[in-house]
Protein backbone atom coordinates (compact mmCIF):
# COMPACT_ATOMS: atom_id res chain seq x y z
CA UNK A 1 0.00 0.00 0.00
CA UNK A 2 2.61 2.48 0.99
CA UNK A 3 5.60 3.10 -1.23
CA UNK A 4 7.47 5.35 1.10
CA UNK A 5 7.49 4.09 4.65
CA UNK A 6 8.67 0.60 3.94
CA UNK A 7 5.52 -1.25 4.93
CA UNK A 8 5.06 -2.32 1.31
CA UNK A 9 8.25 -4.33 1.45
CA UNK A 10 6.31 -7.03 3.16
CA UNK A 11 2.60 -7.55 3.62
CA UNK A 12 2.99 -7.43 7.35
CA UNK A 13 6.24 -6.22 8.80
CA UNK A 14 9.41 -5.45 6.93
CA UNK A 15 12.18 -6.96 8.92
CA UNK A 16 15.49 -5.95 7.60
CA UNK A 17 17.44 -8.28 9.74
CA UNK A 18 17.30 -10.15 12.97
CA UNK A 19 20.36 -9.68 15.01
CA UNK A 20 21.24 -11.79 17.99
CA UNK A 21 22.52 -9.60 20.80
CA UNK A 22 23.73 -10.17 24.30
CA UNK A 23 22.99 -13.86 24.12
CA UNK A 24 19.33 -13.79 24.85
CA UNK A 25 18.23 -10.53 23.38
CA UNK A 26 17.12 -9.99 19.84
CA UNK A 27 16.84 -6.73 17.97
CA UNK A 28 14.41 -6.55 15.10
CA UNK A 29 14.57 -3.69 12.66
CA UNK A 30 11.04 -2.80 11.73
CA UNK A 31 9.83 -0.28 9.21
CA UNK A 32 6.17 0.01 9.80
CA UNK A 33 3.91 2.98 9.94
CA UNK A 34 2.40 3.43 13.38
CA UNK A 35 -1.01 4.11 11.93
CA UNK A 36 -0.94 1.24 9.45
CA UNK A 37 -3.99 -0.38 11.05
CA UNK A 38 -5.99 2.84 10.71
CA UNK A 39 -4.82 3.26 7.14
CA UNK A 40 -6.00 -0.23 6.23
CA UNK A 41 -9.50 0.57 7.45
CA UNK A 42 -9.36 3.93 5.68
CA UNK A 43 -8.53 2.17 2.45
CA UNK A 44 -11.50 -0.10 3.03
CA UNK A 45 -13.76 2.91 3.59
CA UNK A 46 -12.49 4.48 0.40
CA UNK A 47 -13.30 1.33 -1.49
CA UNK A 48 -16.86 1.54 -0.12
CA UNK A 49 -17.14 5.14 -1.31
CA UNK A 50 -15.74 4.30 -4.72
CA UNK A 51 -17.98 1.31 -5.11
CA UNK A 52 -21.03 3.51 -4.56
CA UNK A 53 -19.75 6.47 -6.54
CA UNK A 54 -19.74 8.73 -3.50
CA UNK A 55 -17.36 11.67 -3.14
CA UNK A 56 -16.27 11.85 0.50
CA UNK A 57 -15.03 15.14 1.94
CA UNK A 58 -13.47 15.45 5.36
CA UNK A 59 -14.18 18.82 6.92
CA UNK A 60 -11.76 19.98 9.61
CA UNK A 61 -11.23 23.14 11.64
CA UNK A 62 -10.90 24.43 15.15
CA UNK A 63 -14.11 24.41 17.23
CA UNK A 64 -16.52 27.12 16.21
CA UNK A 65 -14.98 27.95 12.84
CA UNK A 66 -18.30 27.28 11.18
CA UNK A 67 -18.15 23.75 9.78
CA UNK A 68 -21.81 23.03 10.44
CA UNK A 69 -22.87 26.45 9.18
CA UNK A 70 -20.88 25.80 6.01
CA UNK A 71 -22.64 22.48 5.60
CA UNK A 72 -26.03 24.08 6.17
CA UNK A 73 -25.31 26.69 3.54
CA UNK A 74 -24.00 24.07 1.15
CA UNK A 75 -27.08 21.91 1.63
CA UNK A 76 -29.38 24.89 1.15
CA UNK A 77 -27.62 25.80 -2.07
CA UNK A 78 -27.08 22.36 -3.51
CA UNK A 79 -29.33 19.93 -1.71
CA UNK A 80 -31.68 19.70 -4.64
CA UNK A 81 -28.96 18.96 -7.14
CA UNK A 82 -27.02 16.39 -5.14
CA UNK A 83 -27.90 13.67 -2.73
CA UNK A 84 -25.95 14.63 0.36
CA UNK A 85 -25.35 12.93 3.69
CA UNK A 86 -23.28 14.00 6.65
CA UNK A 87 -21.34 12.19 9.35
CA UNK A 88 -20.91 14.43 12.38
CA UNK A 89 -18.08 13.99 14.86
CA UNK A 90 -18.31 15.59 18.29
CA UNK A 91 -17.18 14.72 21.77
CA UNK A 92 -20.73 15.03 23.04
CA UNK A 93 -24.26 16.00 21.92
CA UNK A 94 -25.99 15.41 18.60
CA UNK A 95 -26.72 19.10 18.15
CA UNK A 96 -24.93 19.31 14.81
CA UNK A 97 -26.61 16.21 13.40
CA UNK A 98 -29.98 17.63 14.38
CA UNK A 99 -29.19 20.86 12.55
CA UNK A 100 -28.40 18.88 9.41
CA UNK A 101 -31.44 16.61 9.71
CA UNK A 102 -33.64 19.68 10.03
CA UNK A 103 -32.72 20.39 6.42
CA UNK A 104 -33.96 16.98 5.31
CA UNK A 105 -30.49 15.53 4.88
CA UNK A 106 -29.50 12.27 6.57
CA UNK A 107 -26.94 12.85 9.30
CA UNK A 108 -25.25 10.39 11.57
CA UNK A 109 -23.71 11.57 14.79
CA UNK A 110 -20.55 9.98 16.14
CA UNK A 111 -19.93 10.99 19.73
CA UNK A 112 -16.32 10.30 20.49
CA UNK A 113 -16.47 10.78 24.25
CA UNK A 114 -12.96 11.87 25.09
CA UNK A 115 -11.37 11.22 21.71
CA UNK A 116 -10.24 14.38 20.01
CA UNK A 117 -10.54 13.12 16.44
CA UNK A 118 -12.37 10.71 14.18
CA UNK A 119 -10.50 7.66 12.98
CA UNK A 120 -11.16 5.26 10.15
CA UNK A 121 -12.75 2.67 12.39
CA UNK A 122 -15.31 5.13 13.78
CA UNK A 123 -16.25 6.17 10.27
CA UNK A 124 -16.43 2.55 9.16
CA UNK A 125 -18.87 1.75 11.94
CA UNK A 126 -20.96 4.77 10.97
CA UNK A 127 -21.09 3.58 7.38
CA UNK A 128 -22.99 0.50 8.50
CA UNK A 129 -25.81 2.79 9.57
CA UNK A 130 -25.61 5.11 6.61
CA UNK A 131 -26.59 3.56 3.29
CA UNK A 132 -24.24 4.90 0.64
CA UNK A 133 -26.35 3.80 -2.28
CA UNK A 134 -28.14 6.76 -3.71
CA UNK A 135 -25.66 9.30 -2.40
CA UNK A 136 -23.49 11.72 -4.35
CA UNK A 137 -21.67 13.55 -1.59
CA UNK A 138 -20.70 12.54 1.90
CA UNK A 139 -19.37 15.20 4.21
CA UNK A 140 -17.54 14.03 7.30
CA UNK A 141 -17.47 16.83 9.84
CA UNK A 142 -14.50 16.00 12.02
CA UNK A 143 -14.12 16.91 15.66
CA UNK A 144 -13.23 20.58 16.03
CA UNK A 145 -9.47 20.47 16.48
CA UNK A 146 -6.59 21.75 14.37
CA UNK A 147 -4.15 19.11 15.58
CA UNK A 148 -5.28 15.51 15.93
CA UNK A 149 -7.66 14.99 12.98
CA UNK A 150 -4.81 15.72 10.58
CA UNK A 151 -3.08 12.48 11.52
CA UNK A 152 -5.90 10.07 10.72
CA UNK A 153 -6.92 9.05 7.24
CA UNK A 154 -10.65 8.32 7.21
CA UNK A 155 -10.87 7.13 3.63
CA UNK A 156 -12.00 10.52 2.34
CA UNK A 157 -11.14 11.76 -1.13
CA UNK A 158 -10.53 15.34 -0.14
CA UNK A 159 -9.75 17.35 2.97
CA UNK A 160 -11.22 20.79 3.46
CA UNK A 161 -9.99 22.92 6.35
CA UNK A 162 -11.89 25.95 7.56
CA UNK A 163 -10.06 28.92 9.00
CA UNK A 164 -12.34 31.53 10.50
CA UNK A 165 -11.10 35.08 10.42
CA UNK A 166 -11.53 35.41 14.17
CA UNK A 167 -8.79 32.83 14.73
CA UNK A 168 -5.78 34.70 13.39
CA UNK A 169 -4.04 34.69 10.06
CA UNK A 170 -1.00 32.84 11.37
CA UNK A 171 -2.84 29.57 11.90
CA UNK A 172 -1.19 27.80 8.94
CA UNK A 173 2.21 28.62 10.46
CA UNK A 174 1.10 27.39 13.88
CA UNK A 175 -0.53 24.19 12.65
CA UNK A 176 1.58 23.11 9.67
CA UNK A 177 0.55 19.45 9.81
CA UNK A 178 -3.13 20.32 9.46
CA UNK A 179 -2.67 22.89 6.73
CA UNK A 180 -0.30 20.70 4.77
CA UNK A 181 -2.91 17.96 4.83
CA UNK A 182 -5.75 19.95 3.31
CA UNK A 183 -6.74 20.21 -0.32
CA UNK A 184 -8.73 23.38 0.11
CA UNK A 185 -8.79 26.10 2.75
CA UNK A 186 -12.05 27.91 3.33
CA UNK A 187 -11.73 31.26 5.05
CA UNK A 188 -14.97 31.56 6.97
CA UNK A 189 -16.84 34.44 8.60
CA UNK A 190 -15.25 36.87 6.16
CA UNK A 191 -18.17 39.21 6.69
CA UNK A 192 -16.40 40.08 9.94
CA UNK A 193 -13.24 41.23 8.20
CA UNK A 194 -14.52 44.79 8.23
CA UNK A 195 -14.43 44.92 12.03
CA UNK A 196 -11.23 42.94 12.50
CA UNK A 197 -8.01 44.81 11.95
CA UNK A 198 -5.72 41.92 12.77
CA UNK A 199 -6.64 39.37 10.15
CA UNK A 200 -5.19 39.80 6.70
CA UNK A 201 -6.24 37.14 4.17
CA UNK A 202 -3.01 37.81 2.29
CA UNK A 203 -0.94 36.94 5.35
CA UNK A 204 -2.96 33.76 5.79
CA UNK A 205 -2.32 32.87 2.16
CA UNK A 206 1.40 33.57 2.59
CA UNK A 207 1.58 31.35 5.68
CA UNK A 208 -0.16 28.61 3.73
CA UNK A 209 2.21 28.98 0.81
CA UNK A 210 5.18 28.83 3.17
CA UNK A 211 4.19 25.23 3.79
CA UNK A 212 5.27 24.39 0.27
CA UNK A 213 1.71 24.21 -0.96
CA UNK A 214 -0.36 25.86 -3.61
CA UNK A 215 -3.51 24.89 -1.77
CA UNK A 216 -6.39 27.05 -3.01
CA UNK A 217 -8.09 29.29 -0.47
CA UNK A 218 -11.62 30.57 -0.89
CA UNK A 219 -13.49 33.10 1.20
CA UNK A 220 -16.97 32.57 2.50
CA UNK A 221 -19.51 33.98 4.88
CA UNK A 222 -22.00 31.19 5.22
CA UNK A 223 -24.68 33.45 6.61
CA UNK A 224 -24.64 35.67 3.57
CA UNK A 225 -26.25 34.22 0.52
CA UNK A 226 -24.16 36.12 -2.05
CA UNK A 227 -21.05 34.60 -0.53
CA UNK A 228 -22.18 31.13 -1.43
CA UNK A 229 -20.83 31.11 -4.96
CA UNK A 230 -17.51 29.47 -3.99
CA UNK A 231 -19.43 26.82 -2.12
CA UNK A 232 -21.41 26.03 -5.19
CA UNK A 233 -18.14 25.60 -6.97
CA UNK A 234 -16.89 23.39 -4.17
CA UNK A 235 -19.82 21.06 -4.22
CA UNK A 236 -19.94 21.32 -7.99
CA UNK A 237 -17.18 18.78 -7.85
CA UNK A 238 -19.96 16.26 -7.48
CA UNK A 239 -20.70 16.74 -11.16
CA UNK A 240 -17.36 15.25 -11.85
CA UNK A 241 -17.01 13.15 -8.79
CA UNK A 242 -15.67 10.11 -10.55
CA UNK A 243 -12.87 12.17 -11.96
CA UNK A 244 -12.35 13.99 -8.68
CA UNK A 245 -12.12 10.76 -6.79
CA UNK A 246 -9.27 9.72 -8.96
CA UNK A 247 -8.13 13.21 -9.66
CA UNK A 248 -4.59 13.56 -8.68
CA UNK A 249 -3.02 16.21 -10.77
CA UNK A 250 0.56 15.08 -10.57
CA UNK A 251 2.20 18.45 -10.52
CA UNK A 252 5.92 18.74 -10.70
CA UNK A 253 6.10 18.29 -6.97
CA UNK A 254 3.68 15.39 -6.95
CA UNK A 255 1.10 17.51 -5.22
CA UNK A 256 -2.46 16.97 -6.22
CA UNK A 257 -4.93 19.80 -6.44
CA UNK A 258 -8.61 20.41 -6.60
CA UNK A 259 -9.81 20.11 -10.13
CA UNK A 260 -12.76 22.30 -9.27
CA UNK A 261 -10.79 25.37 -8.41
CA UNK A 262 -8.34 25.40 -11.24
CA UNK A 263 -10.29 23.87 -14.07
CA UNK A 264 -13.85 23.28 -12.89
CA UNK A 265 -15.58 20.32 -14.37
CA UNK A 266 -12.74 19.19 -16.52
CA UNK A 267 -10.64 17.31 -14.06
CA UNK A 268 -11.10 14.07 -15.92
CA UNK A 269 -9.45 15.31 -19.05
CA UNK A 270 -7.01 17.77 -17.60
CA UNK A 271 -3.32 17.28 -17.76
CA UNK A 272 -1.13 18.79 -15.17
CA UNK A 273 1.42 21.48 -15.76
CA UNK A 274 4.23 18.97 -15.81
CA UNK A 275 2.53 17.17 -18.68
CA UNK A 276 1.91 14.04 -16.71
CA UNK A 277 -1.45 12.32 -17.01
CA UNK A 278 -3.95 12.40 -14.19
CA UNK A 279 -3.26 9.79 -11.62
CA UNK A 280 -6.42 7.76 -11.50
CA UNK A 281 -5.18 6.06 -8.42
CA UNK A 282 -5.46 9.20 -6.36
CA UNK A 283 -7.69 7.53 -3.83
CA UNK A 284 -4.99 5.08 -2.95
CA UNK A 285 -2.40 7.59 -2.13
CA UNK A 286 0.49 6.70 0.03
CA UNK A 287 -1.17 7.71 3.23
CA UNK A 288 1.76 6.69 5.28
CA UNK A 289 0.54 8.11 8.49
CA UNK A 290 -2.49 10.10 7.84
CA UNK A 291 -3.88 12.37 5.34
CA UNK A 292 -2.64 13.23 1.97
CA UNK A 293 1.03 12.49 2.31
CA UNK A 294 1.55 12.88 -1.40
CA UNK A 295 4.59 15.04 -1.28
CA UNK A 296 7.34 12.52 -1.43
Amino acid at each position, binding site marked *: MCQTCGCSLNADVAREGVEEQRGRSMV*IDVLQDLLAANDRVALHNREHFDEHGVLAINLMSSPGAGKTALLEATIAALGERYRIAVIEGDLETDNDARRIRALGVPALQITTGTACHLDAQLVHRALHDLPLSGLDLLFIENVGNLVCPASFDLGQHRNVTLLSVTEGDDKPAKYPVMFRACDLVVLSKTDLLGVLDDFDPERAAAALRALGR*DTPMIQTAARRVPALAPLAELAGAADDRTAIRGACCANADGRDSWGLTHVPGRAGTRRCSAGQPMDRDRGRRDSH*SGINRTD*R
Partner: protein
Amino acid sequence: MHELSVCQALLRQVNDIAMDSGAGAVEHITIEAGPLSGVEPDLLVRAFEVLRASRRATAQASLSIESPAVIIRCTHCRKESPTAPNRLVCPLCGDFRTRVMTGDELRLRRVALRIP
Protein backbone atom coordinates in the same frame (compact mmCIF):
# COMPACT_ATOMS: atom_id res chain seq x y z
CA MET B 1 -4.08 14.02 22.81
CA HIS B 2 -4.20 11.68 19.84
CA GLU B 3 -0.86 10.42 21.18
CA LEU B 4 -2.94 7.98 23.24
CA SER B 5 -4.40 6.50 20.05
CA VAL B 6 -1.00 6.41 18.43
CA CYS B 7 0.46 4.72 21.50
CA GLN B 8 -2.25 2.08 21.52
CA ALA B 9 -1.52 1.32 17.88
CA LEU B 10 2.19 1.13 18.69
CA LEU B 11 1.65 -1.33 21.54
CA ARG B 12 -0.56 -3.53 19.37
CA GLN B 13 2.11 -3.67 16.69
CA VAL B 14 4.91 -4.38 19.12
CA ASN B 15 2.88 -7.04 20.87
CA ASP B 16 2.20 -8.78 17.56
CA ILE B 17 5.90 -8.76 16.74
CA ALA B 18 6.77 -10.17 20.15
CA MET B 19 4.20 -12.94 19.75
CA ASP B 20 5.37 -13.79 16.23
CA SER B 21 8.96 -13.94 17.40
CA GLY B 22 8.23 -16.13 20.39
CA ALA B 23 9.74 -13.51 22.64
CA GLY B 24 8.86 -13.36 26.30
CA ALA B 25 9.16 -9.65 26.76
CA VAL B 26 9.93 -6.45 24.95
CA GLU B 27 12.95 -4.64 26.31
CA HIS B 28 13.10 -1.54 24.20
CA ILE B 29 11.16 0.14 21.42
CA THR B 30 12.52 2.74 19.05
CA ILE B 31 10.21 4.84 16.92
CA GLU B 32 10.64 7.76 14.57
CA ALA B 33 8.35 10.77 14.93
CA GLY B 34 9.39 13.75 12.87
CA PRO B 35 8.32 17.33 13.61
CA LEU B 36 5.80 17.07 10.76
CA SER B 37 4.33 13.79 11.94
CA GLY B 38 1.71 15.53 14.05
CA VAL B 39 2.84 13.68 17.16
CA GLU B 40 4.41 15.34 20.17
CA PRO B 41 7.20 13.06 21.46
CA ASP B 42 6.87 14.10 25.11
CA LEU B 43 3.16 13.36 25.12
CA LEU B 44 3.75 10.03 23.42
CA VAL B 45 6.29 9.08 26.10
CA ARG B 46 3.79 9.94 28.80
CA ALA B 47 1.07 7.93 27.08
CA PHE B 48 3.51 5.04 26.78
CA GLU B 49 4.30 5.11 30.49
CA VAL B 50 0.60 4.77 31.24
CA LEU B 51 -0.34 2.25 28.59
CA ARG B 52 2.63 -0.09 28.38
CA ALA B 53 1.33 -2.15 31.32
CA SER B 54 -1.83 -2.92 29.38
CA ARG B 55 0.04 -5.76 27.66
CA ARG B 56 2.21 -8.24 29.44
CA ALA B 57 4.90 -8.25 26.76
CA THR B 58 5.46 -4.50 26.98
CA ALA B 59 4.98 -3.97 30.71
CA GLN B 60 8.71 -3.48 31.32
CA ALA B 61 9.60 -1.94 27.97
CA SER B 62 11.28 1.40 27.50
CA LEU B 63 10.71 3.74 24.59
CA SER B 64 13.00 6.06 22.71
CA ILE B 65 11.85 8.45 20.03
CA GLU B 66 14.05 9.64 17.21
CA SER B 67 12.93 12.85 15.59
CA PRO B 68 14.55 13.30 12.20
CA ALA B 69 15.05 16.94 11.23
CA VAL B 70 12.90 18.39 8.51
CA ILE B 71 14.79 18.27 5.22
CA ILE B 72 13.17 19.38 1.99
CA ARG B 73 14.21 18.88 -1.60
CA CYS B 74 13.38 21.59 -4.08
CA THR B 75 11.90 20.32 -7.32
CA HIS B 76 13.17 23.44 -9.08
CA CYS B 77 16.81 23.79 -8.02
CA ARG B 78 16.99 20.16 -6.88
CA LYS B 79 18.92 21.02 -3.75
CA GLU B 80 18.19 19.69 -0.29
CA SER B 81 17.93 21.99 2.72
CA PRO B 82 17.17 21.62 6.41
CA THR B 83 14.33 23.89 7.41
CA ALA B 84 11.64 24.62 10.00
CA PRO B 85 8.36 22.66 9.96
CA ASN B 86 6.39 25.72 8.90
CA ARG B 87 8.94 27.06 6.37
CA LEU B 88 8.84 24.52 3.59
CA VAL B 89 9.66 26.76 0.67
CA CYS B 90 13.15 26.35 -0.73
CA PRO B 91 15.50 28.62 1.27
CA LEU B 92 17.92 28.70 -1.67
CA CYS B 93 15.78 29.63 -4.65
CA GLY B 94 12.46 30.49 -3.01
CA ASP B 95 10.39 27.98 -4.96
CA PHE B 96 7.47 26.53 -3.01
CA ARG B 97 7.45 23.26 -4.91
CA THR B 98 9.38 21.17 -2.46
CA ARG B 99 9.21 17.66 -1.16
CA VAL B 100 9.68 16.70 2.44
CA MET B 101 12.47 14.13 2.44
CA THR B 102 12.63 13.59 6.20
CA GLY B 103 10.75 14.99 9.14
CA ASP B 104 7.25 13.60 8.68
CA GLU B 105 7.97 10.01 9.68
CA LEU B 106 5.75 8.27 12.18
CA ARG B 107 6.89 4.70 12.28
CA LEU B 108 8.12 1.87 14.37
CA ARG B 109 11.83 1.56 13.76
CA ARG B 110 13.25 -1.12 16.01
CA VAL B 111 12.25 -3.53 18.75
CA ALA B 112 14.58 -5.25 21.23
CA LEU B 113 13.14 -8.51 22.54
CA ARG B 114 14.16 -10.93 25.23
CA ILE B 115 14.00 -14.56 24.20
CA PRO B 116 12.80 -16.78 27.04
